[in-house]
């Protein structure tokens, strides 16, 4: 197989509780099989998954060792779309950790329940120095809000800002991509391709669906359209 010139940077592992369907190690192996040069683990408000992925690189069975990018997906409580944060150096990594700590511990006034993470967009801007930031947008998005967020990200001390472009397979991908392209041109940020991966292999779909049911406190028969039946963000290879 020829090596695709594509790096998957939007990977969600099972360290994003009830969201990711595969272990970080499984992604490392899958990337090796598919010959993907680099993978970026970005779990919801945590760095916990990257440790396992990093350790797995020592495994002899991983023939093509992908470059491992360490980051996190920052999910905000104030309605801002998710931002993938990849620190560029050790100092920026420290700031990312500080950001996550604030989200999980709260400040002196408010205490945060264990397992929750409360971050506002302003918090990210405060710790953005030296970070590579990728804004991801949902299937339907508000262009004005997205433009505003991009402008603020660009205005911060971040080392780079991108707009994620992914296929959601809902039938209107081309129109959505065109809109994203417009947005990127207006905001003067480059587009970055990602698949927003939730599991490493198509065989994991049933597991993923069951996780969704548990998260939504529903059953597989009752969940109906809440399940992402149209999603095929499967193996990193579809490009």
């Amino acid at each position: 197989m020829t090596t695709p010139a594509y790096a998957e940077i939007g990977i969600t592992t099972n360290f994003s509780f009830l969201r990711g369907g595969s272990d970080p190690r499984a992604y490392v192996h899958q990337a090796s099989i598919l010959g993907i040069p680099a993978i970026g683990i970005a779990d919801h408000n945590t760095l916990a998954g990257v440790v396992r992925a990093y350790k797995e690189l020592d495994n002899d069975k991983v023939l093509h060792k992908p470059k491992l990018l360490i980051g996190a997906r920052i999910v905000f409580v104030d309605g801002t779309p998710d931002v993938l944060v990849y620190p560029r150096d050790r100092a920026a990594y420290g700031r990312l950790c500080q950001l996550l700590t604030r989200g999980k511990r709260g400040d002196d006034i408010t205490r945060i329940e264990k397992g929750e993470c409360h971050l506002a967009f302003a918090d990210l801007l405060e710790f953005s120095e030296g970070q590579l930031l990728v804004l991801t947008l949902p299937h339907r998005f508000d262009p004005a809000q997205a433009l505003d967020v991009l402008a603020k990200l660009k205005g911060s001390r971040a080392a780079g800002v991108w707009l994620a472009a992914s296929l959601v397979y809902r039938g209107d991908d081309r129109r959505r991509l065109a809109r994203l392209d417009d947005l990127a041109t207006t905001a003067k940020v480059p587009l970055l391709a990602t698949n927003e991966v939730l599991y490493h292999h198509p065989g994991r779909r049933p597991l993923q669906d069951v996780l969704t049911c548990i998260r939504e406190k529903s059953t597989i028969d009752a969940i109906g359209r809440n399940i992402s039946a149209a999603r095929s963000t499967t193996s990193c290879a579809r490009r």
Partner: protein
Amino acid sequence: MIHALDEAAERLGLYIGQPLANARAMCPDLKVFDADVAADAKTLSDIADWCDRFTPLVALDVPHGLFLDITGCAHLFGGEAALLRTLVRALDRQGFAVSAAIAGTSVCARTLTRQATGTIVADGGEAAAIDQFPVSALGAGEAITTGLRRAGLKTIGDVASRSSHEITARFGARFSTLLAHALGQGDAPINPRKPLPDYIVEKRFAEPIATDTMIAMTLSRLADTLIASMEKQGKGARRLEAAFFRTDGVVRAITVETGRPVTRSAVIDRLFRERLDALADPLDPGFGFDMVRLSASRTEIVVQEQRDLDAHVHDNDEIAALIDRIAARIGGKRVVVHLPQDTHIPERAVWSAPAQHHLAAAMQAEWPVRTESEPPLRPLRLFDKPEPIKVPFATVPDGPPHQFTWRRALHAVVRVEGPERIAMEWWQQDGKQLTRDYFRIEDAEGLRFWIFRDGLYEGETFDGEGKPVSPNWYVHGLFA
């Protein structure tokens, strides 16, 4: 093997279950007809229909018997004796050999019919009435009957004189229950063919009626009476049945169902008129009907509502009434409303439900809303079955075809949108189906199609030897 025989044959000593060759040897000029169990059952059920005129509670006692529960009905026919006479004579005239009896329990009455037809046993007289009959009259089965005879118990009286635990120990609990029922101690409930309707009104005619106008008039009078009796209890009818009893014994029952409880006789009248007009095989009066019965087999409590001055509520009522009328004409299953279902699968996304039962749900149904400036993503109607199309080549892996052949015409693809990927629901019965990629396609003539590729490239479609093959393409619907 002899299945059934008439009296003359019985007198010659033939018996049921005897091999035919033996019977022929005993009686060389025996007339033999093939047994037709299905026709027998049909005849029995027809007779049961006819017997509906005496009581609504008629039960089959296969293979040759009928139970009629005439509690409270006998006086309408001039008493038990007169009823029995009428029934036997009418059936006799139609060429059936009938033996009938009336008793306090069904088992006792059945025992009587085998030995003393025409008997009427008053309550409490059961034991005395069947005392002298041979044990075979109980109809307990060959083994038990033989067993009783061997034990020297020849008559039912003999058996009854033994203590019941002896009988139970020797012949089983089932037989001792049967015996107790025959002797009038407790009764086995009969199992009526039809549930007892909530309300029944009927009209008998000394002179049979045959004209449409008379039938219509009778129905509307019956409807008035029915409504009056239901109104007293605040009920309305959801299901009505009109039964027409022809003089020659044929019974025709016609049913109408309604979406909401009916409380006005004019409505009943109208529904039956529609139904009778639209019958595929019209009501055939023959020599006339001597009885018409109207029954409400399903009723509901009607809540009297305070009407808004606003006309909307009435609109709804009118739709319901219209649906009832159309359903009366073309059948309830053919009038449907569409209900949205919570699934991605196109075939299952809409459920066509009978309108009469699901009108309220359909009125409140929440359909997925289309955002403004979005085109319709799915056609309004899908084909019953996706139709295969020939696709010479398509963009791999996720792309649309460049041209395709559908119904022998070649279509060049000009505009495309998609794919919309729909993975089948693996937890359903048919969940092993392939993932589909749907495309909205416009061809050179401006026709718009909704096509899909059944299965992904590489990995979902295989031929018989497990080698991957190209997936098939289908048209699933057309955009208006």
